[in-house]
């Protein structure tokens, strides 16, 4: 049924395509903030047969976080034009009439994986770790080096000054916790106060922050290539150390040891990042952003748990995540040294 609706949509978007057919529709696991579907489309155009793989990202019934699909679409479209590896964006549809809910469609990148367990433990990927780590850093440096003003990304909201970046993010997540908590959150409440007492130095420059840049959010292959950076829905303008810290936080060290993203030692990550950007990684600033990163993740889980408890979603993932905030609290208290 969804397949037929997608086919009708593509026919409307590709009026010169003849004999257009959609096949092999399947839902991609993960993508807790949006439903993600892969499909093939085949048509004839100018006497030639065209076969293309696409990915559809559709708004969910309820989400971990109510994020803005337009932001994700516009930013991915903009960074693609600058050579950042992201899938090419095609159509953004705000009208729910086509597929019941708003969605966008982008190119599918074939022959790649995103699963951290595969990346960190399958031998064909283990041998490529150093290459992937290098690209992980270089792509982050490229994102942080983009001229967001020239790309028209100031619609994301420009911080009033470099010193406002941290306080803006504290306020954003404090609002989420206040709005969505179903029970007291003493650790998070204490952390917000700790964060305000431990503000980092002003951002060295205001950059495009991906805000979910980590192992698990990029497409990689066994040749050690990162072919696509995913999940841009939290992107904003801010302090580059926010991304450095987010990539480093314990929840994304999937291997269970201290390596950043399960891929590289922290000092190696910092060294490569500094060389690639000319920025300095300040330990205390990263600590601040790591505390806030864990708070942010807990806040996202709280939103998902509320959606589940209020019956706005039947996703058991939301329930599972909501019941596992305690380890994030432990990490927050470790980092705060309390």
């Amino acid at each position: 049924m969804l397949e037929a609706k997608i086919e009708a949509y593509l026919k409307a978007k590709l009026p010169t395509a003849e004999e257009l057919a959609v096949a092999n529709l399947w839902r991609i696991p993960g993508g807790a903030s949006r439903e993600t579907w892969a499909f093939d489309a085949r048509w004839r155009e100018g006497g030639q047969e065209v076969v293309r793989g696409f990915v559809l990202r559709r708004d969910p019934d309820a989400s971990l976080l109510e994020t803005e699909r337009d932001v994700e679409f516009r930013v991915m479209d903009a960074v693609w034009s600058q050579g950042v590896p992201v899938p090419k964006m095609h159509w953004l549809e705000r009208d729910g009439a086509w597929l019941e809910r708003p969605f966008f469609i982008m190119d599918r990148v074939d022959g790649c994986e995103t699963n951290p367990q595969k990346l960190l433990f399958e031998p064909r990927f283990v041998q490529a770790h150093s290459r992937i780590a290098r690209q992980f850093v270089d792509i982050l440096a490229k994102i942080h080096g983009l001229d967001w003003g020239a790309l028209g990304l100031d619609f994301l909201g420009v911080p009033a000054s470099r010193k406002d970046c941290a306080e803006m993010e504290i306020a954003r997540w404090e609002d989420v916790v206040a709005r969505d908590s179903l029970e007291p959150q003493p650790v998070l409440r204490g952390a917000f106060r700790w964060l305000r007492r431990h503000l980092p130095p002003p951002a060295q420059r205001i950059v495009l922050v991906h805000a979910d840049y980590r192992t698990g959010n990029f497409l990689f292959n066994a040749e050690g290539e990162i072919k696509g950076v995913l999940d841009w829905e939290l992107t904003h303008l801010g302090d580059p150390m926010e991304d450095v810290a987010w990539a480093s936080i314990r929840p994304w060290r999937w291997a269970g040891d201290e390596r950043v993203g399960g891929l590289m030692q922290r000092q190696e990550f910092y060294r490569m990042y500094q060389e690639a950007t000319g920025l300095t990684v300040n330990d205390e600033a990263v600590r601040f952003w790591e505390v806030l990163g864990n708070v942010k993740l807990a806040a996202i889980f709280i939103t998902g748990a509320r959606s589940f408890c209020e019956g706005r979603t039947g996703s058991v993932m939301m329930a599972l995540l909501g019941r596992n905030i305690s380890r994030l609290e432990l990490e927050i208290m470790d980092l705060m040294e309390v």
Partner: protein
Amino acid sequence: MRPNALEAIRGVQGALMGVIAPELQSLFVQDTGQTVQMLLESLANEWDTAAETLHNDNRRLSGVLSAAAAALRSLKGPDDALSALAEDIGAGLSAEPDESLAISKLRARNVQLLAFLERTLEACEDGVGERGFEPLAPVRQAIYNHLREVAGRGWSFWDVMSFRERMARLRAGLV
């Protein structure tokens, strides 16, 4: 009644893994099946001790809050908000205790006490480094000690992945 709740949950997990999972075709449904399995594991791990744990937590929280109220009252200088907090805690602790061991009742009491704890911790954090707030320092530490104990207990899917070494250190008493 046998099988009891825990045995029944384990049976559901076994059926999910041994009977249902092999029939699941799509990756998305397989992934959802794994999530259900982890959610059941989380429930199974707290089933037997949930009431006892909440009962003990509420007792400990009452102790921490009682000390907190005393410390708040001992602060010199008028501060209406802190005085009100001390009064609220006192009233909350003196309320007629519900003897029920129903988890919903124990949890309701736990939430009530945690709300006091949250307000107290905010006051402690606001007073860090401030002159005159020294009596709150041991209260702050007692609160975090309790919260750390709660945050490190039980089963979490994180423990077999990203938090593996961290939790091993915790359980070995090294942190």
